[in-house]
């Protein structure tokens, strides 16, 4: 801990010394009496100043929580010698705010004390909490000792998830059983069609009513329930931001929601974070995969990069054939737009949920700014048309709207559109 002297130290020394010298020069003891209190404080302060031997630690009542939840932070302080005034500042990262308690706090410490704060998680992210700045003042206020304690307690704040009535259905399913009705016919529950009996068909599959009507044996065919592979493509090349909201927030929230919903129904979900840092997670299922994805999302950030990345950099196993690729992108960076069109050209079943930058951009005050804004919107509409012409559903998701809206829009597009071969 470093020690710093208060400005009163020099002031009292000067005043006391001047008073003594003046008393000697003028031969007046009153002037010595005038300076005596200053010299007394100075002497006493120099005698009593010692290192208080401070120790501090930070504890959290939990290490993971949801956006908007609160946690209790306890700061344990111990002093070998009593500290008359100890100022404590817990440095909280942006995204965490104190909802109850004083930060900074000023307390008296004799032995050990615990300061309790309630902290609210305002934004998702992976944080380290525990950088503590302390300043201890002695009883006479002549010296202050300050220092920092670094605890770095990890804290993960998961994004809140939107409620979804239904999910995007891929064009093709995979081999394992799941909850998605396959287009193909096979063993399943959902009725698909009738066909004449063939050698090897099980008796319980015979449709007796149809057989009686046609005079020969007919059997039911069903659609099997299969799992699907979903790859969430998070564009982290660029983001638009206003106040506390940003397009990256929307992307992370949507990805967490979709990952949770798909993994819950035994589908395999993968992640490609395509941006300044290219990262991927191979598709997998279950709760462990969900946490892997959410943890990867927490580390997602916009990193400025001029590298021209191609989607070919992503390992083939990360993008399995017949996987549904759901792109979460503001469609602002040419590199991600090109990568998405490239994916579509390779035959991937692609949907784009556009994290609309429109909600974050003002149309402008002057006529020329408004004109530029209109041109920009026209360019964006042309881009949407380009994707749609390639058979890719594009739905805008604006800040403040439920995620269900773009999902329904994409579903409606897919219902009416046929897959185009580009």
């Amino acid at each position, binding site marked *: 801990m470093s*020690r*710093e*002297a*208060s*400005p*009163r*130290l*020099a*002031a*009292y*020394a*000067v*005043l*006391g*010394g*001047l*008073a*003594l*010298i*003046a*008393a*000697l020069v*003028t031969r*007046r*003891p*009153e*002037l*010595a*009496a*005038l*300076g*005596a*209190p*200053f*010299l*007394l*404080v*100075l*002497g006493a302060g*120099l005698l009593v*100043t010692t290192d208080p031997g401070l120790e501090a630690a930070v504890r959290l009542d939990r290490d993971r929580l949801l956006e908007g939840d609160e946690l209790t932070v306890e700061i344990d302080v111990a002093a070998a010698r009593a500290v*008359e*005034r100890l*100022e*404590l*500042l817990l440095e909280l990262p942006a995204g965490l705010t104190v909802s109850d308690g*004083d*930060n*900074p*706090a*000023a*307390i*008296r410490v004799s032995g050990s004390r615990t300061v309790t704060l309630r902290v609210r998680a305002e934004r998702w992210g992976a944080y380290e909490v525990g950088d503590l700045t302390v*300043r201890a003042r002695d*009883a*006479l*206020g002549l*010296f202050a000792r300050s220092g920092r304690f670094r605890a770095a307690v990890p804290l993960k704040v998961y994004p809140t998830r939107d409620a979804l009535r239904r999910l995007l259905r891929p064009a093709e399913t995979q081999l394992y059983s799941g909850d998605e009705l396959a287009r193909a016919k096979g063993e399943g529950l959902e009725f698909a069609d009738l066909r004449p009996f063939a050698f090897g068909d099980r008796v319980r599959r015979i449709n007796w009513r149809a057989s009686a009507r046609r005079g020969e044996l007919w059997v039911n065919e069903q659609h099997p329930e299969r799992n699907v592979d979903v790859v969430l493509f998070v564009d982290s090349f660029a983001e638009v931001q206003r106040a506390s909201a940003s397009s990256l927030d929307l992307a992370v929230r949507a990805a967490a929601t979709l990952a949770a919903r798909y993994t819950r129904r035994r589908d395999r979900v993968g992640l490609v974070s395509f941006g300044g840092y290219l990262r991927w997670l191979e598709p997998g299922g279950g709760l462990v995969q969900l946490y892997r994805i959410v943890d990867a999302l927490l580390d997602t950030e916009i990193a400025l990069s001029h590298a021209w990345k191609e989607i070919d950099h992503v390992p083939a196993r990360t993008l399995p054939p017949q996987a549904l690729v759901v792109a979460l992108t503001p469609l602002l960076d040419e590199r991600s737009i090109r990568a998405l069109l490239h994916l579509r050209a390779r035959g991937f079943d692609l949907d784009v949920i556009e994290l609309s930058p429109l909600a974050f951009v003002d149309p402008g005050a002057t006529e020329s700014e408004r004109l530029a804004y209109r041109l920009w919107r026209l360019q964006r509409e042309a881009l949407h048309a380009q994707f749609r012409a390639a058979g890719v559903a594009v739905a805008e998701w604006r800040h403040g709207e439920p995620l269900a809206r773009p999902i329904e829009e994409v579903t409606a597009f897919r219902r009416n559109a046929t897959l185009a071969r580009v």
Partner: protein
Amino acid sequence: MYAAVVAERLGGLLAIAGAAGVALLAAALAIRAPALVAPALALLGAEYAALFAVRDDTLDVRAPLYGAGFLVVAELAFAALEQRAGKPEPGLVPRRAATLVAVAAAGVLAGLIVLAAAAAPLDGGVGLEAVGVVAAVALVAVLGRAAVRSR
């Protein structure tokens, strides 16, 4: 301003010096300049010292009170200018006030001891005066050195 009030003559001049000291102190607080507190108090002290030039040789027994008052003013001024963080917990401010009262009381006592020592019926002389000068200079030097080393 005590000096200006009790002075038998040149009270106006002392009042101007006192007012200058008060104005300097107010300026120090207004512009948050702790470095100006000591000159302001020195000016007020000079006003008090000037009092002895315009009055008789009787010992002013109120000097310890005046010194303690000076200390309280200085403490409050520095407390106002100090960079403090955090809302103090209940009990912290009363403890600080009690400490200030105790220090002021000790200052009064120290001043009274100085006056009592000055009034002691000792035979003066060059030797004793030299011892006093050396003691005063040594005290200031020791405190100054300790203050510098403790920075």
